[in-house]
């Protein structure tokens, strides 16, 4: 069987090796602002991949800025992308998507306008699965053009993927060869980064260990900047080494309204407001204007969402403490 879907990215490692070679290995200051990072490193038409797990450890500030700067015709890697997908769909930023899980917000339901965006035909889709998208990133991280997998065999998911059946030269078993996925840009939110881009990412890695390696450009947002000694004093902390990274922005609460493990829990109330706003085009536009287009930056967004008080509540929730601050609403 050969999948009918389109491969949106070039999987030839020889075309990527030159790009990786050209990346500087110098320890240079890569700290910049959210608008600058997006302006300089995300181009219309780029293929984008987002770290984290949809509503967990997501680079919200960067995603809002992409919408605000009206980036267009992006490709998108939809591996358990939930709120990240919802934001980019709101900006109608992408028109092609490798789908493993999109539109939905897990147990929270399916936002109406995001779904419509996919149903409208505005987005060309190729089907995959969480594992196969992860393994496609791993193939890229390994510098090979494909990797054999045992998912998707016999199914319509496989039929609408871009995988190709091959046989193992040793056992004769059937496999799907899936093409390496080299995104143009990865956006990853981490716990700590130094100014060079050495980064520490606590808790589950999801696919980010490979995503950072597979991507031609990597933009990190971090909860906090730390000194390089943080890494040099404990070399196990370096989840993402600096030489993979192109820009670093410091955004405390940068995963809001998503959960940031060990930092703050998700804001289910605000995510619910999004869901409700997606019910009608009018409410949707007003919501997006208020929270994205008419806010200058992520700080304003946080202020609109309850500011420090709300953030403290989400920290309390994360640490399973009774709320210290009074509930606002």
């Amino acid at each position: 069987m050969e999948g009918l879907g389109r491969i949106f990215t070039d999987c030839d490692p020889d075309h990527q090796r030159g790009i990786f070679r050209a990346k500087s290995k110098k320890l240079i200051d890569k700290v910049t602002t959210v608008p600058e990072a997006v302006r300089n490193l995300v181009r219309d038409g780029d293929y984008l991949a987002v770290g984290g797990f949809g509503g967990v450890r997501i680079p919200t500030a960067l995603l809002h800025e992409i919408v605000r700067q009206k980036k267009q015709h992006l490709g998108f890697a939809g591996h358990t992308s939930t709120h990240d997908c919802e934001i980019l769909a709101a900006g109608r930023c992408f028109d092609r998507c490798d789908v493993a899980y999109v539109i939905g917000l897990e147990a929270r339901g399916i936002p109406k306008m995001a779904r419509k965006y996919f149903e409208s035909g505005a987005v060309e889709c190729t089907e995959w699965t969480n594992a196969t998208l992860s393994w496609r990133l791993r193939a890229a991280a390994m510098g090979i053009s494909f990797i054999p997998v045992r998912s998707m065999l016999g199914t319509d998911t496989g039929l609408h993927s871009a995988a190709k059946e091959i046989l193992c030269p040793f056992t004769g078993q059937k496999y799907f060869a899936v093409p390496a996925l080299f995104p143009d840009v990865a956006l990853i939110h981490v716990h700590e980064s130094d100014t060079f881009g050495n980064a520490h990412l606590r808790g589950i890695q999801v696919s980010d260990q490979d995503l950072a390696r597979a991507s031609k450009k990597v933009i990190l947002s971090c909860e906090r900047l730390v000194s390089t000694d943080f890494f040099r004093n404990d070399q196990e902390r370096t989840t993402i080494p600096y030489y993979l990274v192109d820009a670093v922005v410091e955004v405390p609460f940068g995963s809001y309204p998503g959960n940031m493990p060990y930092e703050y829990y998700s804001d289910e109330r605000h995510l619910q407001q999004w869901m409700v706003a997606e019910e009608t085009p009018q409410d949707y536009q007003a919501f997006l204007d208020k929270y994205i287009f008419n806010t200058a930056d992520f700080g304003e967004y946080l202020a609109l969402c309850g500011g420090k008080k709300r953030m403290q509540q989400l920290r309390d929730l994360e640490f399973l403490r009774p709320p210290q601050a009074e509930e606002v609403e």
Partner: protein
Amino acid sequence: MISTEYNGMELLVCVASRYLEDGSSVSVGTGLPVAAAMLAQKLYAPNLLVIFEAGGIAPLLPTMPISVGDSRTTYKAIQATSMTEVMDTLARGLVDICFLGGAQIDMYGNLNSTMVGTDYRHPKVRFPGSGGANDFGSLAWRTIVVSPQSVRRFVTKVDFITTPGYLDGPGAREKAGLPPGTGPYKVITNLAVLGYDQESKWMRVESVHPGVTLDEVKSNTGFQLLVKDPLETTEAPTEQELRMLREEVDPLKLVIGREAK
């Protein structure tokens, strides 16, 4: 004394928990499967290894997670790893049971969570897609589906096979290249527990829930069902199960307070 009356969701959780054996591993999503796993750990399977797809391994769940990747899934966990590693572990054969759901299921246990319609490019309704469902349905040893039962959902042929059941019948999984010995195991609905006939791989009713008739099950199924002989009645939730479930597993009624739709 605790009330031994129970609602539909309580029944589902209790029934599901009984299929989880001690010393085995289970991958769970949010909601019912987590509750079933937690209940099993407390009653039948203290050494049940609970795996969350995004990377959380064997947490001591303090509350129900909202996402299969959220903080709760690594609370006091044995390990916080990657989704990639979980999928590798699955491929190596270390995941005994997975829980799945879907918008449609057919007589061979194939699942659709991608779309309704016949034209892939123009779906009538678009769903999120496989997520990890295809991976788990392909590579876990046993797949348990939990689903409301209706003719709209239990169809002769799903519009889109997102996740493989027995595909088009005996031998089809093996022919497709899927690992031998894997596949659909049970379907737990609001009406019955269903399994699969060993030879034909057709879905069959194994037990109907207390107060449910076989006719009700059949009339809520869009295809011809086999029936186990003798057909049993699902054991109702025991007092012990209900107490544990209500008092320790889900005191906030996040799962059991919902309707078994």
